[in-house]
C-alpha cells in the first residue's frame, strides 16, 4: 500500500511532463494507476470478508510513535474500491470532457491523480496522524482542482471557500486527534476504536473530530462550500463532491462509530445535524434550475442522510450506512458525469433551456434514469436496498426504546420525500421535452464519452439484485459495532414497515413533483433563512480586516516606531523585574578615584551634546569623546589591552566617518516634530534609568567567587602566556574569537558589496609605471615628481610617496607625505611586535591588526587610492581569506594529532632581541586574527575611501538610471 502511494506521488509529479507529450491521452495512461489499485484492493476481498485485515507498517517518527502504517479492513476496503474505481472512471471520462487546448491541463491531471492517491492513503492509513495528513492533502488538492478555471472569479472564490472551510475543520480536528492519540497512548486507529478511550478528554476529542468530519462532508452549517464548488470542472464534482472528498467525513464517522457512538453528544449532534442537512439540502435542491446545482444540493442532502445512518451506532444502521455510502457514490458520480455530458453537448445546464435531450440521447437518458431511480430509492436498485435497510434499523432502534431512532426515522423519511421530488424534477428537467421549446441542438460526441457513467449505472443496476454478494463483506464491518443485529442486505425482505414507508415516500414525492409549480410558489414565499454562505463571508472578512488593522497598527511606523515598541517592552519587563528585585550590592562607592569623576563628567556631557548637535562631524567627534573617555577608564582600571584596542578603534572610526561624511551634507536633516522629541526623551531617560538600576543590581547579584581565580594558572600552564586576556582569546575561548572574526569577514564583505554593488573589488588601483619602479635597476628611494616643474627652480621637488603626484596639487601636504614616509614602516614593525608579544604583554592580533590598519589609513590619507594600491597590491578578500584559513586551519590541525579542535601545542625558544619566546599554534591563530583585522580595515579603505573617491571623480554626484548602474559599477 505504501508502494502504491509512492507510485501515485511519482506519477503525479511526472504527469505535467507526460501531458505535454500525450495531450489528452495522458488521462488513459494515468487512469491505469487507480485501476491497478482497484484491482489490488479486489485481491484483498477474501481476507477482509472473513473479518481480517491486511496491515503494513513503515517506521516514520518513532519518538512520537507515528509510523506509516496501513490497514485494510472491510471499511477501508470498501472506500478504497470506491475511490480507486470511481477515480479511474473519472480520469477516463476527462479524456473526452476536455479539449486538447484546455489551459493548465497538466496541472489538472496531476492534481486529480494525486487526489486519488491521497484519498487512497486517507482510507487505508491506520495511523491517525498519517490519516490526518492525507486529510489535509485532499483539502489542498481540492483547492487546486476547484480553482481550475483560474480566470473565473467564481472559481477562485469557491476554491478559497472550500479550502478555508475544510482546513478550519481540519485544524479543529487536529486538536481532537492529538488529544485522542495522547489519551489512548497510541496512534493506531484500529486500537483506538477497538479499545475506546473514555472520560471528558475523550469526549472533547471526539466532538472536535466530528467538527472536522462535518466540515469535510459539507454538513450544516458548513454545507455552503459544496454548491459553490460546482464552479469546478464536472469531473472534479463527480469525483470529489460525490465519491471521494465529501466521503472522507462519512468514512471517519463510520470508522469511529464502533467505538465512540455512545460518547456523550455524539448522537444528538449527528442526528440533528444530519437530519437538518438532509432537509435543508433537499429543500434547496428543489429550487434549482441549474442541473449541476440540483445535484450539489442533493448531495448535501444525501450526505446528511449518510451521516445519520453511519453515525447511528447500531449494527444494522452501520450495515445500512456502508451500503448507502456505496450506492450514493455510484449514482451521484454517474449523475454528475451525465450532467457534464449534457453541458458539453447542449452548451447549458439550465434545464429551462433544454428540451428533447432524452429523445435524442437515449443511452444517456437510460444512464440518467437508472441513477436517478437509485437516488430516489426505487426498487430494484442499490439505493432502494440501502435506504430500506436504514429505515428498518431506525425502526428497530425506536422500538428498542431509543428516542433518537424515531427522530432519525421521521427526519429521513421527510427528507426522502423531498429527494424523490427533486430526483423526478432533475430527470424531467434534464431529459424531458418542453413543448414551448424547439429540441436543443446537441453537439456530436463519441460513444465512449458515456463509458464512465454507463459503467457506474450498470453497477447500480446489478448490485441491487446482487446485493447479497455484498452482505457478507459489509457485515464484517457492521459486526464490529457493539449491540448485535441480524439484518441482511437483500432486495426483498417481505412486507415490512420499511416497505410501506418506501411506497409512501414515492407517492408523496411524486405528488410534490406533480404540484411543482405550487411548491415553487410556496418556496418563494418562505423568507430566506439565515444564509450560512453570508455568515462565512462576514466571518472571513471580519478576520481579514482585524488582522490588517492589527498589522497596520503595529507595523506602519518605520524604524523609529519599531525601535520604540521594542524599547518600551524592554523598559516595562526589565523595569518590572528591577522593581521587584530585593538583592542590592553590599556597598556602593561614589567613585573609585577622583579622576574617574572628571572623566565620567566629560563623557556624560559629550554624550548629551552628541545627541543634540546638528552638524554631523561634531556629533561624530562628540561620540568619539565618549570612546576616548572609555580608554582612560580602562587604562586606570587595569585593562591595558582594552585601552589599547579602544584607542585604536576610536581613531579608525573617526577616519572612516570622515571618509563617508565628506560626501554627505553638513547638517543632519531635521524631520522630527517636537511632540516626538518629548516622547523620545521619555523613552531615552527610562531606558537609561532601567539600565542603570540593572547595572547596580547585576553588580550586587554576584555573590560567589568567579572563575577568575583559576585563570592565571590556566593561562600560564595551559596557554603558555602571561597575558590572560590574550590567552583566553586565542586559546581558552578561541571558539568565540573564531565566531567573531567570521563576523568581521561578513561585515567587510558587506561594506565592499554596498559600494561595489556588482562584485568584490578585485581590481586594485595601481600606478601604470609601478612595475618599472620596483624592478631593481630603476629602483629609487625617492621618486621625481613630474607634476612639479623642475626647470627654473633651484630645488627639484620630489615626491615622498609612490603615488603622491596622483593627488591634486591643492590636496597635497608635504609634511604629511614625509611623516607617513617615515612612520609607515616603524608602525608595521610595531604591529608585528604587538602581535607576537601580545601573548605575554598587552597586545595581540586585534591590537596589532589595528595598528597595521592605521598605518594603511595614513598611507591612504597622504597619497590617495593609488598609494593604497601600491602599499598593499592585493585584493582585501585574499587577506581576509588567508586569515580565516589560518584560524580554521589551527582548529582543524589538532584533530590530526588526535586532539580536540583548537587545542594548542607549544615550543619555546630564545630569540635575540625579543628574548625567550613561546611559539604555539595559538600564535598562528592570532596571526589569522591579525590578518582578518587588517583585511577588514583595508576593505573599508578600498570601499569607503578609494571607491568613493573614484565615484566622486567620475562625477557620480547623481546616480544614473538603474539600468546603467550595474554596468558602471562593474567598471
Amino acid at each position, binding site marked *: 500500500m505504501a508502494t502504491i502511494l509512492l507510485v501515485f506521488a511519482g506519477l503525479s509529479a511526472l504527469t505535467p511532463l507526460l501531458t505535454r507529450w500525450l495531450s489528452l491521452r495522458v488521462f488513459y495512461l494515468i487512469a491505469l494507476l487507480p485501476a491497478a489499485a482497484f484491482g489490488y484492493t479486489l485481491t484483498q476481498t477474501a481476507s477482509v470478508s472473513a473479518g481480517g485485515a491486511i496491515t503494513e507498517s513503515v517506521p516514520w517518527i518513532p519518538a512520537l510513535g507515528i509510523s506509516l502504517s496501513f490497514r485494510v479492513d472491510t471499511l477501508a476496503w470498501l472506500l478504497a474500491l470506491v475511490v480507486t474505481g470511481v477515480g479511474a472512471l473519472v480520469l477516463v471520462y476527462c479524456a473526452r470532457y476536455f479539449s486538447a487546448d484546455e489551459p493548465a491541463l497538466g496541472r489538472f491531471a496531476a492534481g486529480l491523480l494525486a487526489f486519488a492517491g491521497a484519498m487512497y492513503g486517507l482510507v487505508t492509513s491506520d495511523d491517525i496522524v498519517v490519516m490526518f495528513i492525507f486529510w489535509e492533502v485532499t483539502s489542498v488538492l481540492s483547492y487546486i482542482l476547484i480553482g481550475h478555471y483560474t480566470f473565473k472569479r467564481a472559481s477562485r472564490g469557491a476554491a478559497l*471557500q472550500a479550502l478555508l472551510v475544510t482546513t478550519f475543520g481540519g485544524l479543529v480536528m487536529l486538536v481532537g486527534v492529538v488529544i485522542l492519540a495522547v489519551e489512548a497512548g497510541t496512534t493506531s486507529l484500529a486500537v483506538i476504536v477497538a479499545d475506546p478511550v473514555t472520560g471528558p478528554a475523550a469526549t472533547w476529542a471526539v466532538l472536535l473530530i466530528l467538527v472536522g468530519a462535518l466540515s469535510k462532508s459539507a454538513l450544516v452549517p458548513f454545507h455552503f462550500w459544496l454548491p459553490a464548488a460546482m*464552479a469546478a470542472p464536472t469531473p472534479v464534482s463527480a469525483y470529489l463532491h460525490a465519491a471521494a472528498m465529501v466521503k472522507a467525513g462519512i468514512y471517519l464517522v463510520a470508522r469511529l462509530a464502533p467505538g465512540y457512538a455512545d460518547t456523550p453528544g455524539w448522537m444528538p449532534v449527528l442526528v440533528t445535524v444530519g437530519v437538518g442537512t438532509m432537509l435543508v439540502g433537499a429543500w434547496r435542491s428543489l429550487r434549482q*434550475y441549474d442541473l449541476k446545482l440540483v445535484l450539489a444540493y442533493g448531495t448535501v442532502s444525501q450526505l446528511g442522510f449518510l451521516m445519520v445512518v453511519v453515525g447511528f451506532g447500531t449494527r444494522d444502521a452501520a450495515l445500512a450506512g456502508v451500503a448507502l455510502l456505496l450506492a450514493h457514490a455510484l449514482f451521484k458520480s454517474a449523475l454528475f458525469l451525465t450532467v457534464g455530458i449534457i453541458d458539453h453537448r447542449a452548451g447549458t445546464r439550465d434545464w429551462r433551456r433544454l428540451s428533447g435531450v432524452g429523445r435524442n440521447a437515449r443511452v444517456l437518458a437510460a444512464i440518467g434514469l437508472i441513477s436517478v431511480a437509485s437516488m430516489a430509492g426505487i426498487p430494484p436498485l442499490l439505493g432502494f436496498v440501502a435506504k430500506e435497510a436504514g429505515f428498518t434499523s431506525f425502526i428497530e432502534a425506536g422500538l428498542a426504546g431509543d428516542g433518537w431512532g424515531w427522530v432519525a426515522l421521521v427526519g429521513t423519511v421527510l427528507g426522502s420525500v423531498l429527494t424523490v421530488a427533486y430526483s423526478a424534477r432533475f430527470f424531467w428537467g434534464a431529459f424531458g421535452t418542453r413543448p414551448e421549446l424547439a429540441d436543443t441542438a446537441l453537439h456530436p460526441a463519441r460513444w465512449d464519452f458515456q463509458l464512465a457513467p454507463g459503467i457506474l449505472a450498470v453497477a447500480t443496476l446489478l448490485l441491487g439484485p446482487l446485493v447479497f454478494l455484498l452482505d457478507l463483506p459489509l457485515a464484517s464491518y457492521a459486526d464490529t459495532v457493539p449491540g448485535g443485529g441480524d439484518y441482511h442486505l437483500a432486495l426483498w425482505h417481505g412486507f415490512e414497515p420499511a416497505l410501506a414507508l418506501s411506497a409512501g415516500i414515492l407517492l408523496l414525492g411524486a405528488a410534490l413533483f406533480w404540484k411543482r409549480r405550487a411548491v415553487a410558489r410556496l418556496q418563494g414565499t418562505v423568507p430566506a433563512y439565515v444564509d450560512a454562505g453570508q455568515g462565512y463571508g462576514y466571518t472571513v472578512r471580519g478576520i481579514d480586516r482585524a488582522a490588517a488593522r492589527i498589522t497596520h497598527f503595529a507595523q506602519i511606523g518605520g524604524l523609529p516606531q519599531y525601535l520604540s515598541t521594542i524599547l518600551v517592552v524592554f523598559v516595562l519587563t526589565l523595569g518590572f523585574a528591577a522593581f521587584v528585585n530585593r538583592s542590592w550590592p553590599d556597598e556602593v562607592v561614589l567613585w573609585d578615584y577622583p579622576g574617574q569623576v572628571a572623566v565620567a563628567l566629560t563623557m556624560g556631557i559629550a554624550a548629551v551634546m552628541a545627541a543634540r548637535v546638528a552638524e554631523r562631524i561634531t556629533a561624530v567627534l562628540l561620540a568619539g569623546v565618549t570612546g576616548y573617555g572609555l580608554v582612560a577608564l580602562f587604562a586606570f582600571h587595569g585593562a591595558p589591552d582594552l585601552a589599547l584596542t579602544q584607542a585604536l578603534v576610536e581613531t579608525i572610526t573617526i577616519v572612516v566617518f570622515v571618509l563617508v561624511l565628506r560626501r554627505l551634507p553638513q547638517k543632519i536633516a531635521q524631520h522630527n516634530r517636537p511632540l516626538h522629541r518629548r516622547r523620545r526623551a521619555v523613552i531615552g531617560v527610562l531606558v*537609561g534609568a532601567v*539600565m542603570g538600576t540593572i547595572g547596580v543590581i547585576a553588580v550586587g547579584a554576584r555573590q560567589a567567587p568567579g572563575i577568575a581565580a583559576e585563570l*592565571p594558572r590556566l593561562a600560564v600552564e595551559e596557554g603558555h602566556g602571561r597575558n590572560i586576556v590574550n590567552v*583566553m582569546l586565542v586559546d581558552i575561548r578561541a571558539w568565540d574569537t573564531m565566531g567573531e572574526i567570521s*563576523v568581521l569577514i561578513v561585515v567587510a564583505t558587506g561594506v565592499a558589496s*554596498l559600494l561595489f554593488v556588482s562584485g568584490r573589488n578585485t581590481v586594485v588601483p595601481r600606478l601604470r609605471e609601478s612595475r618599472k619602479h620596483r624592478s631593481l635597476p630603476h629602483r629609487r628611494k625617492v621618486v621625481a615628481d613630474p607634476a612639479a616643474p623642475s626647470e627654473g627652480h633651484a630645488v627639484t621637488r620630489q615626491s615622498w610617496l609612490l603615488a603622491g603626484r596622483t593627488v591634486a596639487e591643492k590636496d597635497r601636504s608635504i609634511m604629511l607625505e614625509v611623516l607617513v614616509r617615515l612612520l609607515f614602516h616603524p608602525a608595521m614593525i610595531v604591529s608585528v611586535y604587538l602581535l607576537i608579544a601580545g601573548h605575554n604583554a598587552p597586545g595581540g592580533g*586585534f591590537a596589532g591588526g589595528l595598528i597595521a590598519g592605521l598605518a594603511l589609513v595614513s598611507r591612504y590619507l597622504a597619497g590617495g587610492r593609488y598609494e593604497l594600491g601600491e602599499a598593499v597590491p592585493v585584493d582585501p578578500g585574499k587577506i581576509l581569506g588567508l586569515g580565516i584559513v589560518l584560524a580554521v586551519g589551527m582548529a582543524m590541525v589538532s584533530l590530526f594529532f588526535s586532539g580536540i579542535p583548537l587545542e594548542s601545542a607549544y615550543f619555546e625558544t630564545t630569540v635575540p632581541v625579543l628574548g625567550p619566546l613561546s611559539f604555539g599554534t595559538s600564535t598562528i591563530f592570532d596571526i589569522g586574527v591579525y590578518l582578518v583585522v587588517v583585511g577588514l580595515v583595508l576593505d573599508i579603505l578600498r570601499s569607503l575611501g578609494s571607491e568613493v573617491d573614484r565615484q566622486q571623480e567620475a562625477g557620480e554626484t547623481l546616480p544614473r538610471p538603474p539600468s546603467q548602474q550595474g554596468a558602471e559599477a562593474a567598471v
Partner: protein
Amino acid sequence: MSASLTLVIVMAVMYAAGVYVMLERSLTRVLIGFLLVGNATNLLIFLMSGRPGTSPIVTGTSADAAMVDPVPQVLMLTAIVINFGITALILALIYRSWWLARLGDEGDTVTDEHAAETVESTEESFRSVSEDEAASQEDLDASERGTETGPDQQHQHQQGGEGGETAGAPGTGMTL
C-alpha cells in the same frame, strides 16, 4: 561586589542619550545612537569586573592577588572590534542610500511612504477576495432565480455578461 556609582551614572546617561538619538529618522543619528549605546554596553560589562586592580598579566609576584577579573575584558575586546565593523557597515549603508536616493540632505533619512501603499494593496486584495466570493454567490443565486417558464429577464444579462467581465481580469485576484 561593589561598584562605582559614577560609572553607573555615566553608563545610564550614555544609554539615555543614545536611545534618544537612535529614535530619529536620520540614519546618521541612528549611527551616533548606536555608538553611544555600544559604548554604554561595554561600560556595563566592564562594571562587572568590579573595583580597579592590576592588569591581568601574570607576573608571578604578590601583585597578582590584586588582579582584576579578566573575563569581562575578553568579552569586550572582541565587542569593541565588532562594533567598529558594524559602524563601518552602517556607514556604507548610509552612503549607499544617499547615493541612491538622490535627495540631497534627505538622502540618509528613512521614510515610511510605503505605509499608504500597504494599506492600498491590502484593500485591493480584500476587494478581490470579496469579489471572487460575490461571483461565486451570484452563480448560486442565478440558479434559483425566475420561474419554471424561463429565467428572470432582468437578471439574465448579468449571467450572460459575466464571462466577458471575468475573462478580462485574470490575475487581479491573485494578489493574495
